[in-house]
């Protein structure tokens, strides 16, 4: 098969790989937008609910699966082909994340990519949990990779793989706002006591 025929095949098959149509990017409020809430704990909870728009977006949830298999696309269907987290959360032997995913999105095939592509460890599973449950989990050293709140902020505000969520390529809907705005919300949440919504 030649490159010419390859292009035809790509045009036909790419439609199978993309997800539902991309929706408009959802904006995020700034921490200052919550300054009118006098009660600090209530303000903290509200900040986390706003940040939760990111945490509960498919871009984050897909890679925080509760089972062995991640989901994909905006409708969060099971990953195709079948992949499992494996012993190191980077896939099974001979079917690693890097078997298909590069360090950057590969637009011609619609395959996403970023450095350190992997799923979150199972103790950090978010799928199927309420925002309040996720909030408590994020603060729990036994379920957050032994991260301090400062390290949680650093992960959310600066991690490259987290950052991919705002630049997912293809027709995937980006996470709401920007990574910087998300980081500012998380920082403000921590500064106000890291209170959690009801489970």
């Amino acid at each position, binding site marked *: *098969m*030649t*490159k010419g*025929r*390859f292009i035809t*095949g*790509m045009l036909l*098959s*790419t439609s*199978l*790989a993309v997800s539902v149509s991309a929706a408009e990017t959802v904006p995020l409020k700034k921490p200052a937008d919550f300054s009118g809430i006098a009660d600090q704990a209530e303000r903290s909870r509200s900040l986390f609910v706003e940040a939760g728009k990111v945490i509960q977006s498919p871009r984050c949830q897909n890679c925080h699966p509760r089972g062995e298999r991640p989901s994909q696309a905006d409708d969060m269907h099971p990953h*195709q*082909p*079948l*992949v*499992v987290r*494996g012993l190191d959360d980077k896939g*099974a*032997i*001979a*079917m*690693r994340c*890097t*078997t*298909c995913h*590069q*360090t950057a999105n*590969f637009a*011609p*095939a*619609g*395959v996403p990519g970023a450095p350190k592509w992997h799923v979150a460890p199972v103790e950090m599973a978010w799928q199927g949990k309420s925002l309040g449950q996720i909030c408590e989990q994020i603060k729990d050293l036994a379920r957050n990779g032994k991260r301090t709140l400062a390290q949680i902020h650093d992960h959310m505000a600066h991690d490259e793989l987290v950052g991919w969520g705002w630049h997912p390529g293809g027709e995937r809907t980006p996470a709401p706002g920007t990574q910087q705005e998300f980081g500012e919300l998380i920082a403000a949440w921590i500064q106000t006591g890291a209170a959690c919504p009801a489970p």
Partner: protein
Amino acid sequence: MSAISINVNGRAHQVDADGETPLLWVLRDDIGLTGTKFGCGVAQCGACTVHVDGDPARSCVTPVAAIGSRKVTTIEGLESRTAKAVQKAWVELDVAQCGYCQSGQIMSATALLEQNPHPSDTDIDHALAGNICRCATYVRIRAAIHAAASQLSA
């Protein structure tokens, strides 16, 4: 287009290609190694599987510029003891039907056995889940991997 250096099957090649060109087309069109097959073009079928530094990679979604100094092995260059055992088992069990997917299947099977000499059925299923066979030779593929494992440990 630019000159890109790439090591395939132990040989250095210089190809004139855009860096975003999938490795598959550099292998097939520029280097002339047609054992690696085009199936879907979107990493859904596994027919294009090669090894990059020993690990399986779908060459249809790997931009050639991403290879860098890593070593690419195609079905034509597969010659380790494990690979020979896999190929022998493939012949003895008459695994292939139409054969189109088989180079990809063998690349994945060899990589599995190189890293896990005694895979369970589940290990095999997980390792080869991304290699589709439209003739549905999966039962023989699994049996051949077990046979190769037995041969290697004998």
